[in-house]
């Protein structure tokens, strides 16, 4: 699996995700600077977490117009899998590769803690190493993780089974207490219509080895490895 990790000014989880990818696949990913206009041949493109451009204007708004993103959008149209984590998810919504927007958390607070998520489906390239409806624990670390989309978009996402992960309690119930960001429908992550693009606010790379206190993020990278070799 040849992966490329895009590095924006202000990215701060680029090296974490590179380590997670290397540990799972045995190959260090290519790190690609945002100002570049081409990517090495890639089976997977990762947009990492962080605070690209200091979150100026809106989270992900500036990064969405980086030179490299033109190439990412072009490759996305050709089916290259794309994983956007946290700020990467925000960048994906700002480019229009995923619908909706990540707004300021309803509590107005930066939230950094473990949350329980329900894996909504396990038949995608990102999720086949999970059980369907499995409850996993992955940390979030964001100020703008409050997923919002208009009613029509939400209905389409639900109808097309495009919710990847939802914040739930340990029993798998999507209640308000399990959704500190205030996301609509407890959404933690969504797919594009072909399930080749995943954007999620939780950080699977932060729970991909024992030393970090959890392994619930690792199956996501193992799923990708199985499909992309």
């Amino acid at each position: 699996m040849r992966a490329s990790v895009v590095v924006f000014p202000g990215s701060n989880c680029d090296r974490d995700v590179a380590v997670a990818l290397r540990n799972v696949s045995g190959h260090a990913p290519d790190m690609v600077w945002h100002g570049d206009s081409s990517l090495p041949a890639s089976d997977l493109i990762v947009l990492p977490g962080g605070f690209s451009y200091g979150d100026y204007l809106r989270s992900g708004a500036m990064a969405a117009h980086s030179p490299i993103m033109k190439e990412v959008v072009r490759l996305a149209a050709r089916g290259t899998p794309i994983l956007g984590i946290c700020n990467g998810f925000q960048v994906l919504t700002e480019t229009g590769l995923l619908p909706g927007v990540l707004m300021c958390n309803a509590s107005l607070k930066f939230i950094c803690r473990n949350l329980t998520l329900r894996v909504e489906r396990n038949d995608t390239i990102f999720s086949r190493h999970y059980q369907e409806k499995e409850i996993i624990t992955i940390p979030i670390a964001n100020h703008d993780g409050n997923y919002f989309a208009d009613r029509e978009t939400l209905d389409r996402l639900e109808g097309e089974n495009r919710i990847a992960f939802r914040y739930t309690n340990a029993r798998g119930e999507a209640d308000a207490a399990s959704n500190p960001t205030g996301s609509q429908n407890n959404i933690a992550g969504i797919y594009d219509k072909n399930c080749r693009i995943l954007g999620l606010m939780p950080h699977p790379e932060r729970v991909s080895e024992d030393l970090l206190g959890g392994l619930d993020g690792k199956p996501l990278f193992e799923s990708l490895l199985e499909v992309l070799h």
Partner: protein
Amino acid sequence: MRAIVKITLKNGVLDPQGKAIEGALNSLGFGGIDSVRQGKIIELDLDETETEKAEAAVAEMCEKLLANTVIENYSYELVP
């Protein structure tokens, strides 16, 4: 020519910052506030001198970058 762009949240979009400001105003004793919505103002100094061309350019800037039309409305005025 100067363009003053005003960006506001669409109706129905939750505005946690506006809510917090409303709460603070209430606690300061300012009564009679039904709601507070927070937005942004962006001022642009343009080389363009023709109003029509400036309007077209500013509208495109709003659509492409300055506003996220999923949640935000924009309006602008041009000041010669």
